[in-house]
């Protein structure tokens, strides 16, 4: 059975022997990753032939990339959509006005907390944004796994991407304050 030979995108889920679903028990993924990494890590072939070491490098690199993709909700959803032939188009995307308004509000709150060097405000903002990400992620799970609403899922992924960027910016601001 060849997956990529048929022109189909490569499934990271099948690399780990997992069902291609958004709702992925993290323990199962961790276990499958560690099992594969234990087999193919280049250190297992430290004294092997050049060809073995090269192949181990390729395969371990692939396993790490697959693990990172499936572990990160946005990347996992994008990968799942990719397997179904759906691409995320950043440039052509339109976002609902309410979401954009919320974004602007959060960004302003971030700017204020940063200017005031208010650690507690940053923490509160981080918590509320993360809570919103949780809600979005649950919606995404339903859209992908049960409702077969791929178009809706694309919209949710785009929103989650915005939120991830915001979370990173809040973390950066906290780093800055601490330094």
């Amino acid at each position, binding site marked *: 059975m060849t997956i990529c030979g048929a022109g189909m995108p490569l499934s990271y889920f099948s690399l780990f022997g997992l069902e291609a679903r958004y709702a992925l028990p993290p323990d199962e993924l961790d276990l499958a990753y560690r099992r594969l990494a234990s087999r193919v890590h280049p250190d297992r072939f430290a004294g*092997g032939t050049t060809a073995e070491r090269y192949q181990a490098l390729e395969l371990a690199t692939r396993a790490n990339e697959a693990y990172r993709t499936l572990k990160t909700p946005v990347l996992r959803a994008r990968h799942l959509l990719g397997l179904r032939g759906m691409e995320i188009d950043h440039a052509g995307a339109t976002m609902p006005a309410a979401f954009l308004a919320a974004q602007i509000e959060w960004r302003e709150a971030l700017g204020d907390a940063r200017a005031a060097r208010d650690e507690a405000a940053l923490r509160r903002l981080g918590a509320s944004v993360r809570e919103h990400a949780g809600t979005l992620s649950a919606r995404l799970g339903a859209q992908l796994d049960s409702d077969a609403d791929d178009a809706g899922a694309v919209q949710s992924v785009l929103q989650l991407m915005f939120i991830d960027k915001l979370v990173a910016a809040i973390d950066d601001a906290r780093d800055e304050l601490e330094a």
Partner: protein
Amino acid sequence: MALLSIAEPGESPAPHQHRLAVGIDLGTTNSLVAAVRDGSSRALRDEDGLKLLPSVVRFLPGGQVEVGLEAKSRQLADPLNTIVSVKRWMGRRLADLSDSQRQAYRLLDGRGMVEVDTAAGMRNPVEISAEILKTLRQRAEQALGGELVGAVITVPAYFDDAQRQATKDAARLAGLNVLRLLNEPTAAAIAYGLEHASEGVYAVYDLGGGTFDISILRLSRGVFEVLAVNGDSALGGDDFDQLVYEWIVAQAQLAALPAPDHRLLMQQARQAKECLSSHQDAEIYARMSNGAALAFTLDRATLEGLTAKLIARTLVPVRKAVRDAGTTVEAIQGVVLVGGATRMPAIRRAVREHFQREPLTDVDPDEAVALGAAIQAHALAGNRSGAGDWLLLDVIPLSLGLETMGGLTERIIARNSTLPVARGQDFTTFKDGQTATSLHVVQGERERVADCRSLARFELRGIPPMAAGGARIRVIFQVDADGLLSVSAREQSSGVEARVTVMPSFGLSDTEIAAMLGDSAAHAVTDASMRALREQMVDAERLLESIDSALAGDTQTWLSGADRAMLEAAMAALRDELRVENAEGIRTAAATLNELGAPLAARRMDDAVRRSLAGRQLADFL
């Protein structure tokens, strides 16, 4: 692990001799060498029964060198030629060093990094560190009774590429084959985790003489998975000494001091700090070169007041690492303390308060790093692990990126990505008809290129002229399990390609290493080539062993008679070259055999994947 590549883990098809390998903790203050013997990792002692080798090197006129206690005992009499804490200079230029470090020696900017003017001439940090490593290598060869196959050398997790490269160069200069540079906190975690059969998420808080590291790891069924590292490669116990020294100078209202007085007071400062870990007060007494005597009492509360800001500084990377690991302080099951400086009660208190739990101190903070390194060296040299089957999944400590327009960094590989890792990014041209582009590879977390460390520059030429934005240049960064970066760039429409294996601008080339070896002793070059030949022979024998045992299985279904005959001919050719010990012949014959043996390797790897996942072919995933 030559044979593990063929056999199931835990099963060795052919008995082979124990390959001598050591772990070396090349520390700022003290260094150690350890090895696995009779299944357990132990620090090796010198003739006097001592394990710790002070990382002090003294250069005498005429080129004679003293290392360790002997050098340390002479540092007051001969401060300018007696180098302490050389690790803080590795891969660093004068501008990177603190004023106090600059004023203690005759330092200049040399080739790529600082150099110090000594009675034996100019010496750079690589050469000075090599003296420490040479001493440890001799100690190990004496204790183990044979020549070393290689060594795992530890470095602070937060060392950048330049500092790592300098460490590697020092080892090569000392005649050591580097099996791996291993991060210090990871090494400590291996020693601790294997000994205690720990499971769960652990933090390692490692405050050494010159560096601070924090690592968060997940230990699970023999897999050590580093989740995040962070740190400060210019913060260590030395900085606590410096603050005590400044306190003494302020108390005594001293002006600029001559070098011997400076060194004397630094020594007094260190002793006082160490004394205060077990006492409430420390007496400081010093007779200066002008005859004046100083006497003070420093109490623990004053020391803690002086150094509180340093301790607070360690908690910044701690918070970042916990966040990067995607975990919380509450989810961490244990905090292991490593490094001599963690003996300070104030540090233990700060760690306890931050992690809300008693830190684990049942590992010797001085030895844990070397012991863990020895365990990994033992495995990487191809020996069966005494501690059972285990694997380390390490991460890249600092982000890697490219310079883009306006002096900004485009991050390609984020810090804390698990190794090995490869990632690509597409770029384009910004001028009409542009036929070349220059790529600047940088390391660091800052947005501006000027604030990151420059690793390499290379050019992609021969791009067909197109309108601005027309070319599609894909740049791929690959970092292998050793943390070595190679970068390739390819213009997609024309297929024009360029690649570079990154060696920092101040990394030493093989020729330079050979020249330095030549400088230090005329016969060292022959030594080095003998060593190279022996390493080649070991490699060739492993290759033969591994192919032999692959052919021993059932090969008829997938290996044709002709292919098999060809393999056997290539093996015979390699055995002939081995018999006459012809280095060049061995190299060529081994390369041929490696090439012919490639299908066997694919077959092995397929088997490995199949065992982990029934019914898949390797080709499905590559």
